[in-house]
């Protein structure tokens, strides 16, 4: 994928200079080509990072020691830059030996840069998304800015042309009493030594809100030590404007058949839960599954269930998608083993072979084998984007992966009204697969307006049960933080092929970022 065409010749130099600084204002979009698989990895990892930022902000006081430690750890884990002085060290040592583990600091900064811009595309679409994205990015920026050495801070201000008006000695003298009583940390002596900057109060909202600054006639008088507030505010304003501009160029993104679903999914992921921790294990009996599949399963799962009953077999992709879903709705390991064994042994597989060849992978799903990872049920994003079904596969999302004509027939077969069918097909045509699924949900549950935004097959199931009155025993804790498995879950090679193919067909990304 190419981020730009027209600026390529300056690209390399500008870029290198940009990455020499430990922190940037994200003023310029990336100027280079990246592969689609890198695109996806970067996006998902930044999303993880931002979700960590969000979670930490809820659990800890921002900028407390614990908060900073945890955030540093996460930055390290996800290979984002976390040490402002790392480049210098790297450079000095690089002549002797290449970095030993993982990417170099420069590569991390590149990733930081690119991933930020990818998420801008995904998170510019609605007011809520923008607000969420800005908040997390601002918190991340605050952490990074505060980690800078004083000299680096000055450099940063200088490089980014951030100049603030310092008030005169005279004015300072006149306002001294008020300045002293407006800030906890400013004593009379300090007032004389310290610079005060006079900015419109709108540029220092955090200080205004908490009454930690002197206000007069619409201006805030900010002691130098609090300058981070203005910088952050500046960052927030720029980002907010940039997102609004990007949103306006969205039609271009919408017309991009490959990018659009990916971006939609990235943006849906932030509200997502992982549906892996179950409180209702064993609440569902195997006998119920047939009837539940007709009433409360989303089409993707209903289709897998039918295929399994008919063929007494599912290939790996289907077993993963359906097996994890069943685990998510509350099947225990024992039940799962029994369920799959029963069905498979009706076909060509005998009990012995099942135990040898398949039981392992079922236990694997429940984290009882191998790396002992507790796999989470697939989100819509994962179902739609990764590992598209090939011949003999029944997994995937019918709204995304079925022939429109077949999908239409199926909907008619499921007794969706003609107008409902055409509404759904319209959404499918616009590549709004989850919205199409949600519309299907509304039509088949006779509700006008669902209050949730669909992002997960297990969510579909829970919402359906809630409506049908079966929700009482199938409840889960709503506030479980997402433990995203988007990346660690195994991927078929076909996904990689698809990415390659995508790489050839997508347009220049930077066309979506209007110059301010």
């Amino acid at each position: 994928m190419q981020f730009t065409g027209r600026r390529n010749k300056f690209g390399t130099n500008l870029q290198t200079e940009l990455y020499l600084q430990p922190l940037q204002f994200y003023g310029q979009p990336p100027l280079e080509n990246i592969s689609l698989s890198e695109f996806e990895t970067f996006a998902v990892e930044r999303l993880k990072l931002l979700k960590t930022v969000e979670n930490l902000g809820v659990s800890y006081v921002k900028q407390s020691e614990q908060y900073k430690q945890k955030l540093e750890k996460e930055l390290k884990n996800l290979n984002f830059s976390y040490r402002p002085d790392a480049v210098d060290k790297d450079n000095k040592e690089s002549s002797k030996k290449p970095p030993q583990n993982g990417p170099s600091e420069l590569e991390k900064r590149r990733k930081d840069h690119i991933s930020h811009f990818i998420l801008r595309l995904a998170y510019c679409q609605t007011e809520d998304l923008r607000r969420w994205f800005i908040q997390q990015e601002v918190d991340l920026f605050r952490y990074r800015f505060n980690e800078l050495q004083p000299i680096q801070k000055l450099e940063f201000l200088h490089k980014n042309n951030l100049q603030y008006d310092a008030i005169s000695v005279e004015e300072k003298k006149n306002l001294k009493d008020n300045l002293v009583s407006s800030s906890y940390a400013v004593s009379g002596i300090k007032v004389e030594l310290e610079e005060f900057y006079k900015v419109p109060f709108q540029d220092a909202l955090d200080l205004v809100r908490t009454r930690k600054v002197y206000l007069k006639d619409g201006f805030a008088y900010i002691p130098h030590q609090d300058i981070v507030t203005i910088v952050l505010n500046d960052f927030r304003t720029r980002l907010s404007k940039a997102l609004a501009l990007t949103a306006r160029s969205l039609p271009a993104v919408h017309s991009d058949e490959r990018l659009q679903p990916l971006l939609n999914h990235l943006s849906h992921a932030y509200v997502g839960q992982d549906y892996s921790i179950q409180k209702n294990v064993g609440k569902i009996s195997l006998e119920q599954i047939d009837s539940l599949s007709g009433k409360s399963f989303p089409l993707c799962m209903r289709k897998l269930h039918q295929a399994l009953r008919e063929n007494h077999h599912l290939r790996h992709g289907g077993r993963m998608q359906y097996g994890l879903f069943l685990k998510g709705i509350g099947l225990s390991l024992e039940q799962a083993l029994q369920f799959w064994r029963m069905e498979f042994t009706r076909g060509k597989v005998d009990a012995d072979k099942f135990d040898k060849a398949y039981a392992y992978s079922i236990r694997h799903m429940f984290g009882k084998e191998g790396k002992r990872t507790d796999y989470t049920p697939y989100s819509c994003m994962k179902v739609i984007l990764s590992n598209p079904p090939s011949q003999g596969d029944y997994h995937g999302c019918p709204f995304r992966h079925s022939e429109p004509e077949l999908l239409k027939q199926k909907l008619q077969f499921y007794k969706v009204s003609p107008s409902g069918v055409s509404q759904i097909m319209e959404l499918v045509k616009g590549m709004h697969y989850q919205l199409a699924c949600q519309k299907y949900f509304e039509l088949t549950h006779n509700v006008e307006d669902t209050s949730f935004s669909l992002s997960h097959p297990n969510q579909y199931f829970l919402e359906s049960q809630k409506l049908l009155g079966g929700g009482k025993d199938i409840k889960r804790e709503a506030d479980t933080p997402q433990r995203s498995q988007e990346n660690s879950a195994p991927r078929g090679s076909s996904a990689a092929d698809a990415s390659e193919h995508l790489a050839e067909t997508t347009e220049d990304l930077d066309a979506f970022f209007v110059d301010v």
Partner: protein
Amino acid sequence: MPSSDYDPACLPDLLPLYYRRLFPFSQYHRWLNYGGVQKNYFQNREFSFTLKDDIYVRYQSFNTQNELEKEMQRMNPYKIDIGAVYSHRPNQHNTVKSGSFQALEKELVFDIDMTDYDDVRSCCSAADICARCWTLMTIAVRVLDRALREDFGFRHLLWVYSGRRGVHCWVCDEAARKLSAAARSAVAEYLSLVKGGEETVKKVVLSDPIHPFIKESLAVVEHYFPQYALQQQDLLSRKDSVDKVLALVPEDVKKELQMRFQNEKRPEIRWKLIEDQAHKKQSTAKKGQHFEKEIMLQYCYPRLDVNVSKGVNHLLKSPFSVHPKTGRVSVPIDLRELDKFDPFAVPTISLICEELDRPKAGEEEEEKPEDATEREDERDAAEKRKIRAYKRTSLAKYVKHFDQFLDALARSRKGELLRQSDLQKEF
């Protein structure tokens, strides 16, 4: 002119008359059009109407003053709310691609409601008000008006009686209308001092150093406190109320004061004793002994409904809307006469409709020529008749004050234009 003659059952009969002959449409449009400087500023403004039987219609919008007039005369709303200026015509919001219909601007607004003071009023509760507790509103207006002007630099503040038990403030400066939601909530939080609900005893806690804003606000409160709290509310006379006050001071001080209060019943002296204790503490203890100030603030400091101020798209009852329960018109308050403002003297819709029917006694023909540039051609005779109409009623002085407010807005618009063209000349 007792207001008790208003009967809510008559409202449906009075409203048509009010909207046909009394509602100051011309000024109203002049206000929300803001000189026509920004394109579609009036056209993209949301109005919402509450009709008979609490039918609530949102997203009304109008192209011209004439259209607004016609619609209001047709629908005769029981209540009018004003919302934001949107990116598109609000009445077409359904046809706009979702997400792109956005609230862009609105006046910065404040809503102060007497029900929020129930724990510190002894005279009334809930929706009731009386002359005694109205002082709380006077204090609120003084405190906020000062801060919004001196601290935030705003100039065009329209204070409006809500028609029942509170006041609203519309900050109309261009800078205020353009504030983001984040900025609005920051302003509202800056202005909020009283925190905590039913479960909180001590709702104001001051820490050193005391911010200049709090000092200024205290100066206002101190001015009203003796007369209002000690005399009118009997703060330190009634046993239960004394106990509540003493719950706000440190334990040792409380014991001391309880003892002294046994021989001292006069409220002013009792207050003096509290102050003395506070000063003593302040000179000996290390920091943060401001309980006398905290008491005054807890009992008198304005209590804002922060949520109303925060959102750009939040609706607020419009000036000149009638309150369906009391029948009183929501009128602008002239701050030069704030201390004399009496909510019970605000005209009701029945009163002004009645005045309209009275023979024109001594009516003066001092029709002030309207600003010619801001007048449309079509309406003339009808308009003039209407001007005369409201001038015959007690609504006149409130509309006049509104006119003055609008003139000031227009003047600073002109000033701004001049400044800009001067700037251009310099280049």
